[in-house]
């Protein structure tokens, strides 16, 4: 599919330090950088540990579980390349391993009466192209 036919903008530019993250997603794994000196797990990927400044960085596989740290419900598309029909839920997820990342909450009505901060969520994988899979999240245990 050409980018024009996709429902979402592709992540770009993919940077070398983030390649293990994107490679993992393609195989259905949510990989996170982890400092091999102090054990700090962090996100986004970078070449040094933001806690201890070590440059010995390895990768671990996340459980894919976490909590909805915060959310918004977008009522109007602010980017023409993003074609998911509004309203949709923008999500900040805090993973069990510690790091927070941005995503979407799916499998629940986009209604602030139903969605609450700190609700448990789990990853679902959304394949965009042969190269790119995105981690989305749904209420833990399935959702609707």
């Amino acid at each position: 599919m050409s980018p024009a036919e996709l429902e979402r903008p592709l992540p770009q530019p993919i940077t070398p330090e983030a390649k293990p993250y994107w490679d993992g997603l393609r195989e259905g794994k949510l990989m996170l950088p982890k400092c091999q000196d102090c054990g700090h797990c962090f996100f986004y990927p970078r070449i040094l540990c933001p806690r201890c400044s070590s440059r010995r960085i390895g990768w671990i596989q996340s459980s894919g579980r976490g909590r909805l740290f915060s959310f918004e419900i977008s009522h109007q598309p602010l980017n023409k390349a993003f074609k998911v029909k509004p309203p949709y839920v923008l999500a900040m997820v805090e993973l069990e391993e510690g790091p927070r990342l941005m995503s979407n909450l799916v499998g629940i009505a986009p209604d602030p009466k139903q969605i609450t901060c700190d609700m448990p969520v789990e990853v679902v994988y959304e394949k965009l192209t042969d190269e790119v899979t995105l981690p989305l999240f749904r209420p833990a245990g399935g959702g609707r």
Partner: protein
Amino acid sequence: MRELSNTACIVGVDESDEIGILPHTSQLSLHLQAITNAVRDAGLKVKDVDGIFTAGQHSPSLLGEALGVTPRYVDGTTVGGCSFIMMVGHAVAALHHGLCDVAVVSHGESGRSGVGVTRSRDTSLSGQFEIPYGFAGAPTYFGMITTRHMHEFGTTLEQWAQVAVSTRKWAALNPKARNRDPITVQDVLNSRPVCYPFNLLNICLVTDAGGAVVLTRADRARDCAKKPVYVRGAGEATEHVMVTQMRDLTFSEATRLSGEKAFTMAGVDRKDFNHIMLYDAFTSGPPIMLESLGFAKRGEGVHFFEEGRSTPGGSLPINTNGGGLSYTHTGMYGIFPIIESTRQLRGECGARQVPNCRLSLVNGMGGMLSAAGTLVLATER
């Protein structure tokens, strides 16, 4: 920093010739209009300028070239809308050390019409980790801070709306403000939903405008055209850029640090202020800044607005120009609260003049509470 207190003054301020929707004015022209107007306000000449401070797309060297001056000190700190607030502190230091004699801090942004605007910056982090999920524009980031605040402290949509209502009351008194008709809490709640928890009236305007601030050393300031405004304190800090990296989503560490530095340098306490300007890109911004600056307990910043303290006639007027919410907001709003504080301290504000205004606080953010700049401005040293 203490020795820098009161060593320099703001001696000139002004906006561009017009502010609002200006498809006939380039971004560079907005700068040049604001600079010439502010220099005239100071009773100085453009050729007197030897220090240029600006943030955004134009470098200080380009402004020097366009003005036909050769600055011997330049600063292009670009960390968001509060950059100009930080630059007042930088200018004070540069003036004190003789690195320049007349400093101008300039802002010009064709934020609405985009005349002379090209966007080019590194987008690899948002491009990979935010944009694919539909994040785009400030409301989709600042809302995260706001929703979490509501969860942790029980803040309500009605309370955020009070900030818009209070600010509009001031705009009604400012002839330069874009939106001047009174609004109610219900009007805010009924306005078009953009991105929960924000409706349209929770979000700042998007306009075209320029603004500039001229500073010189205190000894020279007394010879300028207007009553000098002393820079008694200045502070700055940055914490993050990506909202996911903010340590505490409902408290701005950068703002706390910036405020502490400014208050310590000025030797003032929070209760001493009788006028406050807070960067209001969103209604939730000013209350969270009041909490981070130590004016209110966590979760209680909104009380300043719902109790009417912030409004005309209130005990602590806030955002008396009508703010980014109702007066103007180009994108990097930070120059405008400095202009308003200066005018209030000079007593130039007509119907919206705060009686006996002697000590004013300016606090701004860059990005999503990512950076902060704070000024303590005073009529006397």
